[in-house]
Every structure is written in C-alpha cells, then in structure tokens.
C-alpha cells in the first residue's frame, strides 16, 4: 500500500487532435506553435463556423497496422470498432498507443488489476443527432444505436479491445472531466485499489446545435473571428472572445511505482484535486480555482514555490481567462516571476473533457524536453505581471508543472506533475 504522498508513475501516453496523431508529432507541433483551427463545413447563418478538427484519421488503416505486431488487439479492434461512434474509435486509438508506449501490449493475466476511466460525458451528440435524422427518415436507428449512444459503451469497447478487467466507468465533469478522471485514478492507485489505470480523455462530438447554444451563452467564440480561424483562439489576449472547440483524445497509463519494474517513467502525477463551487452556472469562481490549485499542491506535499510551469485552463473566454489570472496571482504571489504560463488550447482548441488528459501530456513533454510552447495569438496580454509565454516558445528548466481544468457547473480540478527521471 502506497503512502499518503506517494507519486503515481506515468508510463505511457497517446494522443490524437487537430495538430498531431502521435506523441512525437504532438511535441514538435506544440513547440512550433502550430494550430489546427479551420472553418467548419456549416451554414453561414450559424454563429460558430470554426473549430479544430482531427484531420486525416482513418481507423481502419490504423487497425490494419496492428495486424502482425498485435494480432489480438487487431482482431478485437476490427470487430468492436466496425459500427460505433467516431469518438470511440479515437479513444481506442489513443488507448492502444498509450498501452504500447508503456511497453504493456497484450495484458494477459495482469488485466484483472488494471482500471479504466473514460473522461467526458455526452460524447455521442453528433451520433445521436444523425440517428434521430435516420429514424425520422427510415423508422429505424442504427442497429447498434442502443449500445453506442451510451458514453459507457466506450468503457466496454476499450475493455474488450485491450482485455481490461479491473474497475472502470466514465467520469463527467464538463471541461474538467479529464482532470477529474486523473484525480480518481490517482487515488485508486495511491490507495492500492489498482496497480495500473488507463485514463482516456474522449473526444466530444459537438453538433452545430450545441455550438450555437454555447455561443448564446457567450462561451463559444462567435463574432468577428469567424472569418479568421487562425487568429480566433487567443487565451489571455485582450481580443479573446470565447472558446474554439477542438476535437481530440488523449490517454495516459498510470501505475504505482512498484509495478513499473524496469520500464520508463515518463513523468509522475504527484498531486490532484477536485472541488465544487456550489454553483450550477458557467461562471468561473476565483476562490474555487485557488482551492483546487492549493489542494492539488497539498496532496503532493508541495508549495507554490515548487512549480515552474502552469498549463492554464485558458479557454480564450474573457471572464474565464481573467478569473484564472487572478486566482494564479493570488496563490503564487512572490513566485510569479518563476512560473511560466501557457494554454495548449491556443493550439488544439478546447478539447473539452479530453483537454485535461491532453494537457497533462503537454506538461510531460514540455518538462522532459525543456521548453514551454507559445501562447498563440497573445499579442496584447490581459495581464503584465504573469509570466505568460509569448508567441514564441521559451526554454524551461523546471521539475514540477501544474495543470488546471475548470468546468461548467463550478467544477474545479487541478493536477500536479513531476518531470520524468530521464528524458
């Protein structure tokens, strides 16, 4: 049984988003500040006409590539993914990447001790809408609809493909889902419930309807930037006007230190928190954000002076960005000059429930490769006291990073990660 402050090893990572299909490509893309935001194929009368879509991903080609190297995973994936949601395919893709990256492959007898948490809820929005249209036209949904519209189907599909037989479920905490799932897995491992756990941040398939609704609330970027996608997502810039949705999925394999053996520890999850504001609205809350960051530090027996880099929630929403800046300033006070801050969402868009996992991966690759990626479009920062990375990458020499995820409904979650032992 692990002690109260014991770290949890990150041994495998997988990612797919608008700027990358794998970890090395992701590392290069964020270092160079590449973004994936383009016009969406929607009517001109929609308020939201931009987004960061996953490009050129074909699940069949990927599954075929496993045929000789991983015949078991290949055979199961081919069947399970044949008629399901695109989000499930992306989850299977990143989960398999992460398992292979961790050097685990076919899990065999160890599978009983591995947990699986899929982060995100309402993942199948577009699938549901397409089936509603099909039902209206033909009187029948897709034969697998009753399985596939449930988010928990992703847990079943991934557990079958990867033969996982420990505890598992989905965790919904809006945009904080990724961090909330990391929080849960962290405590499962610390408390000895499982020795290993996959945390998958799943891609949410928003419809034009959902995006319009976010625009009505002023959360999604819907104004002048619609005709200028490359400049639309600008966290912490004075001209920020709301989040830009990004498709993406990420997975990390977490393990207790004693289950790693001789395999590579890419980073360590050392702290995590999850707190509510007592509020159901979209409003961010400075006190809740401070509490989340403080509790995450406490859970790793750390203080603000230990942190050298913050991966901000930073959605490019004016109120959200301002509130997070105020929360960081309040907690980090005398240490602000030593803490680099950026938002990966300036590159990937807001990957919603997946963002916590993708941004943990961003923390690990930046810590291990010694850089902080650009804050794209940060032309006129809303705050001059914070050490916000400019539009150019900077060198980073830090041991610990902190990553925020704040969701609608007053859900605040922070994770703290330590650099890998060798890069």
């Amino acid at each position: 049984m692990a002690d109260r402050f014991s770290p949890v090893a990150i041994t495998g990572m997988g990612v797919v988003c608008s700027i990358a299909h794998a970890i090395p490509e992701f590392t290069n893309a964020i270092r160079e500040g590449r973004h994936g935001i383009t016009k969406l194929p929607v009517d001109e009368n929609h308020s939201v006409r931009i987004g960061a879509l996953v490009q050129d991903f074909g699940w069949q080609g990927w599954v075929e590539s496993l045929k000789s190297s991983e015949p078991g995973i290949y055979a199961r994936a081919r069947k399970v993914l044949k008629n399901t949601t695109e989000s499930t395919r992306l989850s299977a893709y990143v989960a398999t990447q992460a398992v292979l990256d961790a050097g685990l492959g076919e899990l065999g007898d160890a599978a009983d001790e591995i947990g699986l948490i899929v982060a995100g809820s309402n993942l199948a929005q577009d699938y549901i809408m397409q089936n509603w249209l099909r039902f209206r036209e033909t009187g029948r949904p897709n034969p697998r609809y009753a399985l596939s519209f449930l988010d928990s189907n992703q847990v079943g599909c991934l557990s079958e493909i990867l033969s996982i037989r420990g505890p598992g479920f989905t965790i919904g905490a809006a945009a904080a889902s990724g961090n909330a799932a990391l929080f849960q897995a962290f405590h499962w491992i610390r408390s000895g419930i499982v020795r290993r756990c996959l945390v998958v941040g799943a891609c949410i398939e928003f419809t034009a309807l959902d995006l319009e609704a976010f625009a009505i609330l002023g959360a999604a970027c819907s104004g002048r930037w619609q005709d200028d996608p490359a400049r639309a997502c600008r966290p912490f810039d004075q001209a920020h006007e709301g989040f830009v949705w990004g498709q993406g999925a990420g997975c990390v394999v977490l393990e207790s230190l004693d289950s790693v053996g001789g395999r590579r520890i890419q980073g360590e999850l050392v702290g995590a928190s999850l707190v509510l504001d007592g509020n159901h609205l979209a409003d961010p809350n400075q006190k809740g954000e401070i509490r989340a960051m403080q509790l995450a530090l406490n859970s790793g027996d750390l203080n603000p002076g230990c942190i050298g880099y913050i991966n901000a929630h930073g959605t490019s929403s004016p109120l959200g960005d301002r509130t997070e800046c105020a929360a960081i300033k309040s907690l980090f006070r005398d240490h602000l000059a030593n803490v680099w801050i950026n938002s990966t969402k300036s590159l990937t868009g807001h990957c919603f429930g997946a963002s916590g996992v993708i941004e943990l991966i961003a923390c690990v690759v930046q810590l291990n490769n010694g850089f902080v990626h650009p804050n794209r479009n940060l032309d006129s920062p809303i705050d001059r006291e914070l050490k916000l990375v400019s539009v150019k990458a900077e060198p980073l020499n830090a041991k610990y990073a902190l990553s925020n995820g704040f969701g609608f409904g007053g859900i605040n979650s922070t994770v703290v990660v330590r650099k890998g032992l060798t890069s």
Partner: protein
Amino acid sequence: MFLDKEKIFEVVKANTLKVLPDLVAEDVTIDKNLSDLGANSVDRVEVVIYSLEELSLKVPTSELHGIRSLRALVDLLHRHALSK
C-alpha cells in the same frame, strides 16, 4: 424487383460477411444458425436490419426477435417481399 429466396439469401449472406469479418464466403450456408457462425445478439440484429434496408422491406420490429437461422430469416424476408 422480384425477390426470390435465392436473391434474398445472397443479400443476407453478404451482410453476414460484412458483420462478421472473420468468416469466409463458404462458411455462410442457408442451413447455419447465425450464432454458430459467431454472431452475438447484436450482430444478429445488424444482419437483419442491413438486409431489410438493402431489400427495402418493412417488417415490424416484434417479428424480428428470436430469428436464429439464416433459413428462418430468408423465409421471413421472402414472406414480406411477397406481400409488398
């Protein structure tokens, strides 16, 4: 289009192969049960629905439950094709 049982079976067979990619064409004969071919309950529904759609047939959902053998499926579809 006139649908005889042979044509209907060809459609059912093609959809069985689509749903169960590990099979080869020779495995799928009229005297087999779908479960013998490795189909689970949801696979069976897929074969039935795809075949209905391809043949442009409407069959009440309640009549589709409990179909196990390919022969029973072909007979059901044939009956509805005739009454169309």
